[in-house]
């Protein structure tokens, strides 16, 4: 992952199968074979659903470079009984269209799915116009939307399969900078966080690429410092696993969140709000992107620059434990 170059974000290099190359595209093709009501839409992003289009050409709706229209159009399709999956770039999905999503999809409880590829800083040196580091902060305030952030390819497929029958809107935020976390993807339960590891010294919670970082850091903490971490995959950000969070926070007294998202409004905020409401006294810290103008570069260097690395996660966890 660390040596990934810009070109790798758009290619299948080092990837083995259709499933790992484009898990969200693979999953919707599998789902489409089971359910005729499923249609896909994209605004000049048809490459993300090439497999679906090859199998079900009449069920793909190209929207041209008109993202706002794609969301309202999908709401119309859903109101007539179809199940639309919109494939977008996160900055132009949840961010550009958030009012259409709120007013047409969320408020009307329609089963539209927005798959946000290239989230966080995955677009790297394209520049900050192409970043989506505020999308979870926005999506999680929507009344009826389920917000998901898969940890890797296998978990993406598992999450998409397990949410296919939800009769509510779903936002699936795809991180591109993920390594393999699961040999076999967990069967996700609605609103629950799978536990990757048990420990009593510190709680590490990640989503998207943050999950893999948490798992790798926990390994290092145990091997080098004998620190035992509770590690969770916060794939569900709305609803989220309040019970698991509070039980673990109470046990360890220290919680570190890891996410490729702004420090404002994402998982770090969810955790802080939740422990404060519960009246727990807990030491908190975040590995996330700062609340200021972000640098531009290839993703691997940006992750290094902003500390989205196992070594920085481990260092912050160590500080929490020793403080």
């Amino acid at each position: 992952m660390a040596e990934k170059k810009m070109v790798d974000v758009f290619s299948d290099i080092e990837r083995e199968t259709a499933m790992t190359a484009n898990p969200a595209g693979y999953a919707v093709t599998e789902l489409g074979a089971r359910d005729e009501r499923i249609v896909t839409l994209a605004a000049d992003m048809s490459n993300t659903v090439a497999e679906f289009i090859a199998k079900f050409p009449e069920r793909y709706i190209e929207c041209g470079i008109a993202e706002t229209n794609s969301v309202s159009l999908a709401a119309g399709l859903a109101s007539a009984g179809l199940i639309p999956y919109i494939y977008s770039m996160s900055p132009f999905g949840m961010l550009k269209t958030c009012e259409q999503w709120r007013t047409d999809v969320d408020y009307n409880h329609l089963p539209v799915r927005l798959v946000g590829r290239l989230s966080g800083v995955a677009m790297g040196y394209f520049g900050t116009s192409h970043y989506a580091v505020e999308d979870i902060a926005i999506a999680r305030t929507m009344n009826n939307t389920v917000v998901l952030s898969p940890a890797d390819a296998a978990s993406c497929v598992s999450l998409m399969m397990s949410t296919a029958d939800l009769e509510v809107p779903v936002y699936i935020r795809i991180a591109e900078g993920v390594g393999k976390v699961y040999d076999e993807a967990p069967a996700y339960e609605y609103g629950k966080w799978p536990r990757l590891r048990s420990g009593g010294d510190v709680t590490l919670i990640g989503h998207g690429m943050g999950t893999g970082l948490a798992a790798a850091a926990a390994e290092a903490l145990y091997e080098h410092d004998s620190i035992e971490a509770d590690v969770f995959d916060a794939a569900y950000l709305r609803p989220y696993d309040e019970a698991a969070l509070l039980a673990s926070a109470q046990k360890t007294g220290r919680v570190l969140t890891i996410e490729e998202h702004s420090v404002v409004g994402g998982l770090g905020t969810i955790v802080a709000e939740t422990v404060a409401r519960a009246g727990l006294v807990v030491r908190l810290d975040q590995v996330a992107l700062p609340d200021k103008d972000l640098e531009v570069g290839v993703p691997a260097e940006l992750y290094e620059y902003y500390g989205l690395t196992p070594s920085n996660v481990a260092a912050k966890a160590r500080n929490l434990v020793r403080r």
Partner: protein
Amino acid sequence: MPADTTLERGRPLTGAELLHRADWIRLQTVDLIAQAGLGHYSSTFSAAELVATLYYRALRLRPGEPHWPDRDRFLLGKGHVATGLWPVLADLGYYPRDWLKQFGKVGSPLNDHPNMKLAPGIDFSSGSLGHNLSVGAGMALAARLTGRDYRTFVLTGDGELQEGQVWEAAMAASHYKLGNLVAIVDANGFSGAGPTSAAMNIEPLGKRFEAFGWTVREIDGHDAPTLLKTFDELPDPGSHEPVAVIARTRKGHGVDFMEKQPQAWHLGLLNAEQYADVVAEISARMELANG
């Protein structure tokens, strides 16, 4: 009426009856706004004949089964004129007339802008201008994908056409050859703050829609024979060009002092004397028509 009773397209309605219905909508609107304390008079009045034509003539409906898959859809893009729609839906039996008494109160399913989750007969929520033509295009596309022959009508304001999303939808509708989609523009010439084209020119509307690949019918939106003919003779839903009915209307039509000062009555509340004058003017016209 039994739940599966279908009101077919082209129901009997004379021109005089259409105008009478439109005036009845105006009277009902005045009462609903009086009850709520504030409302959109003049833009509801410009659309009254259009709403009457649709609901008493053109739309295929099943009020006892609001989600009937083959119903024609109607989307009120200019959602702020819902006061003109609520009495019509009650009259057709979508909900009891008693519901109107709760209009404007907390917990009422009927709001100033329509909510599809609350009010039976509302095919889609509106209020945020510029969205509904996209949504309607989605419904029309869904009809194609599921092999149904319903039509989707979207009533937009002319000011609403300043929203860029409308033209994204216009492009998509012609690209997908949605002859089952009908946009009706209530071209009353005014938006909230003044004359529409003084704020941002939207003319020539007909040519603009034609350039986007639409079939255009430009009509007098208050003339009963024209309205009946236009909606009776819409191209078949299976045809390949979406249809824009550009209805030239007068904001505040039907009440003399509002038509003279349409902008003043975009949003407001009649005082007791004005209320009496408005009711008298409209009622006199309705009685004359009856007589």
